[in-house]
Every structure is written in C-alpha cells, then in structure tokens.
C-alpha cells in the first residue's frame, strides 16, 4: 500500500512538473513571437477557404462526369 502511495505521489509530481514546463514554454512562445498566432489564424482561414472552393470544384466536375456518362 505504501509503495502504491509512493508511486501515485511520484506520478502526480511528474505530472505537475510536466504541466509547469509546458505552460512556461507556451507563455514564452506567445510573448517572443509577438502575436504571430493571429497571422497563423488568418492563414488557416484563407487556406480553408481555398480548400472548400477546391472541394466544390471537385464535386461539380464529378456531377458533370456522371451526367455525361448517362
């Protein structure tokens, strides 16, 4: 039982350590990049728009292909 407690304690400790580290990295990254994530968000939106447009064209061509096969 004691061993189990020790194990849980160690695991919890490790988890806490890991969280601390990742939080620090995250904060540093956001600060050092100077809101670069805004640009990333804009690019992702533009990319998604282009992809949705491409999927639409793809579907239209598929429809035409079906119609000409008939």
């Amino acid at each position, binding site marked *: 039982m004691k061993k189990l407690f020790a194990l849980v304690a160690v695991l919890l400790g490790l988890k806490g350590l890991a969280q601390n580290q990742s939080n620090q990295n995250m904060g540093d*990254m956001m600060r050092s*990049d100077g809101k*670069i*994530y805004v*640009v*990333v968000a804009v*690019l*992702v939106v533009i*990319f998604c728009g282009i*992809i949705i447009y*491409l*999927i639409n*064209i*793809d579907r239209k*061509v598929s429809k*035409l*292909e079906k119609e*000409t096969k008939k």
Partner: protein
Amino acid sequence: MKNWWKVLCIILLLYTIVWGFLGPIPNLDIIHETIRNLYFHVTMWFGMMILLTVSLYNSIRYLSKSDLKNDIIASEATNVSILLGILGLCTGSIWAKFTWGAWWTNDPQLNGAAITILAYLAYVLLRNSIEEEQKRARISAVYNIFAYVMMVVFIGIIPKFTGVDSLHPGKGGNPGFNTYDLDSHLRAVFYPAIIGWTLLATWIMTIRIRITNLQRTN
C-alpha cells in the same frame, strides 16, 4: 475511401501552416525567422520537380503506347508545375530581397530556374500551336523530354559547380541547409510540407485532367 489522399493533403498543409509558424527553429544569422520560408518556398520547387517527373514519365509512356490519356496527364502535370515554378520564383525573389538585398541577382540558380520556367512555357505554346491531336501529343512528348533534361541541367547541375558564383544555399560551393542548418525541428515540418504541397498540386492536376476529358467527350 478513394479520396483519402485529399484528406491527408489538408491535414499535412494545416500542420505545415500552424507548426511552420509556431514551431521551434534554429538560430541563424541574417536569415533569422525567414528560415520558415523553407516550408513554403523550397517546397514549391520540390513539388514542381515531382510533378515534372510525373509529366516526363507520361510523355515516355505516350511515345511507347500512343495512348492519349498519357498525353493529357503529361500536359496537365506540366501546367500545374509551371504554376508552382512561378510561385517559387516570386517567393524566392521576396526572400532574396530581405536576405541578399536585391529582388533578383545574376545568380546561376535564379537564372537557371527562370530558364526552366521559360522552357516549359515554350512547351505550352508548342502544344497550342498544333491542331491535330496525335501529332501534337507526339511532338510535345519529345519536347517534354528535352525540357526535363534542361531543367535537370539548369537547376540541378550547373549551379552546383564550386566555380560558379552563387549565393543560393547548396549551390556554388555553399553549404546547403541540409548539411548543418536543417535540424530535426525543421525536418519535422519540411518533409510533411513537401508531401502536402505536392498532394495539393496533384489534386488540382486531377481536376484539370477530368475537365479536359469532359471537354473531349462532348
């Protein structure tokens, strides 16, 4: 699920855009953050070369089998490659302005890339100038082989000579990014980016091929 590769393409490119900007990079002089262009500028050229190889393969197949399907694939692969090449030239020009200080330098790598694009534009002109289908397919297939050799010589061989004065990484005796700068962080985005952009170009290519086939049946 025959469209799995389109899903893969979207996932890889979203990963490239997000992690390409937020991911860690090596600390480099002069280049600084612009090393992230590796995921966008360099991948254009990789995609172009991969699609031009697809085009070459189909041209050779056309010459041995005389199947017009191969001719259509070859021509549309070249069309999309030219788009990638022009994007590569423009992005490279911007990158050069902010690292070398000029939009265009008399660099063998830059001029070689420009000559390659011109050679493939000539391919498009040649195709459009011949009316008869089989004749057009045969002549453009032969020209395509010639243009591919030009591409390899002008992008792959001449700029690599140590005697040539080139600023471009990996050319003119300069060490490439892959020898000491391309660390594991860059690789983790660079390789998926190559696959992603190539798949996107392939997607556009397949749509163009299908439209051409529809036009032919009507």
